[in-house]
């Protein structure tokens, strides 16, 4: 099997409970390079917990997450040391939060936000860092003239795009997104989705996108996983699941989309 055919990320029988409340039960899937998977479901169905389990921000009660490192070796993330895990998280992964304030440093300029990961991996040339930041701001359609502005004077859409640039600057292979378009108005959402689709294709990113918005799933993802009460109830190709949902709950989800 050639390197590209092996999965990038493998989740095996992940389980997490908070007291008696089961957030994730027996979740298994694998994600290949360049593949985008959407996780949909209502609030409280365990989507965000799953994302936290995948990125090792929360330890699973059972099961494991394995990841193919840049050196080609697939390793169990639970066996990595904290330093290794943090290094992975700021070089090979991206994490896009629903609220950009969580993923950005609001008190430092946009340029420094984008440059932080580069400085963290040892870049020590101001000119080069600034050039990389300028390039990335352009790619996410933020005017280069605003590079020295702080994100707290940016609009919501710009903040979200800045957060994406900050995550992608080290050219990660896996991006985890938690409701990246919620909280934005629809025209801004459309623009952001368009941008995300372009970037994912251009950079051959693998991504797991948690969303409750089926339109986002339809536009961005290849595959879809429907969750309810901590369990995966249906998986498949996005178009297939959305056009021909088998489970009653999925049918309900698809039927509840508003048509203007």
């Amino acid at each position, binding site marked *: 099997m050639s390197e590209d055919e092996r999965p990038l990320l493998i989740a095996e029988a992940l389980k997490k409970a908070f007291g008696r409340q089961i957030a994730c039960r027996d979740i298994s899937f694998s994600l290949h390079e360049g593949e985008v998977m959407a996780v949909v479901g209502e609030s409280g169905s365990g989507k965000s917990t799953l994302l936290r389990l995948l990125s090792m921000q929360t330890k699973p009660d059972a099961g494991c997450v394995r990841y193919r490192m840049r050196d080609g070796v697939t390793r169990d993330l639970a066996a990595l040391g904290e330093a290794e895990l943090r290094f992975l998280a700021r070089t090979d992964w991206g994490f896009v939060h629903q609220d950009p304030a969580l993923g950005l440093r609001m008190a430092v*300029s946009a340029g*420094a936000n984008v440059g932080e990961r580069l*400085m963290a991996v040892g870049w020590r040339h101001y*000119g080069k860092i600034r050039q990389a930041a300028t390039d990335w701001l352009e790619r996410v359609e933020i005017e280069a003239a605003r590079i020295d502005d702080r994100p707290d004077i940016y609009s919501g859409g710009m903040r979200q795009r800045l957060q994406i640039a900050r995550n992608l600057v080290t050219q990660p292979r896996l991006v985890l997104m938690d409701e990246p378009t919620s909280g934005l108005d629809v025209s801004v959402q459309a623009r952001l989705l368009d941008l995300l689709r372009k970037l994912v294709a251009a950079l051959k990113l693998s991504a797991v996108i948690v969303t409750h918005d089926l339109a986002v799933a339809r536009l961005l993802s290849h595959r879809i996983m429907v969750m309810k009460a901590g369990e995966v109830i249906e998986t498949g190709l996005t178009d297939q699941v959305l056009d021909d949902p088998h489970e009653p709950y999925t049918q309900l989800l698809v039927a509840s989309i508003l048509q203007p």
Partner: protein
Amino acid sequence: MNAPAYNFAYLDEQTKRMIRRAILKAVAIPGYQVPFASREMPMPYGWGTGGVQVTASVLGPNDVLKVIDQGADDTTNAVSIRKFFQKTAGVRTTTDTREATVIQTRHRIPETPLAEHQILVFQVPIPEPLRFLEPRETETRRMHALAEYGLMHVKLYEDIAHHGQIATTYAYPVKVDGRYVMDPSPTPKFDNPKMDDCPALQLFGAGREKRIYAIPPYTQVVSLDFEDHPFERYRRDDTCALCGSTDSFLDEIVTDDSGGRMFVCSDTAYCEGRRGSDMPAAPAPGEGKS
């Protein structure tokens, strides 16, 4: 005041042992902030309670103490701390840097090079260099543990982006012994190179924040910078109006209300030494200005 009522150097022996243990650990791990059980001192926080506790713990009866505040021997803070140890420890005090064995300082390193038998004690208001970038103490400690110091360069990046140069002029972050990033207390960055490979032991005490850290003698201390914006020592391009020094750190003194000003050495003992013995002597032990 009845001096003998106090233990030698004010603190009780158990407290001094506790502080000495923290100091030993700090010396063993250069630049690492060691927590210690800081005591209440008979002075407000911000006046050098950390430095005073460190000084009290390292002081012996034969030591000669010098205390400086912003380089000067005769300002309120320096005078009161000097009197404090005269009263509670009965040690000899001096203003001459060469004569002193323990020097407690607020925000300066003397111009006269230090020697092996000397200990320099810094008063530190905020020991955590990452504080204003990452307010969570749990997180900054983890960053120190994993040597994740990218964030420190974010601060320097911000300086250059907004001011065209690294505008941090004091509390300029340094890397000690190739490992820990440390805040050298609010000393001007002019003094940073003096910390590198210094023959004297340098101890840092933060009383409110309950931290002690140290630079052992002859330790490498590197000021952080960028390849294309290297660290630069800053000194106002002027000469001292009193002694004519062209290489000491200068204070600006406003002399009237119509724009008159002069620049003088901030290190008063150094300035007086250069002017010779005909100048008025520094305050004798026991008679600080009040």
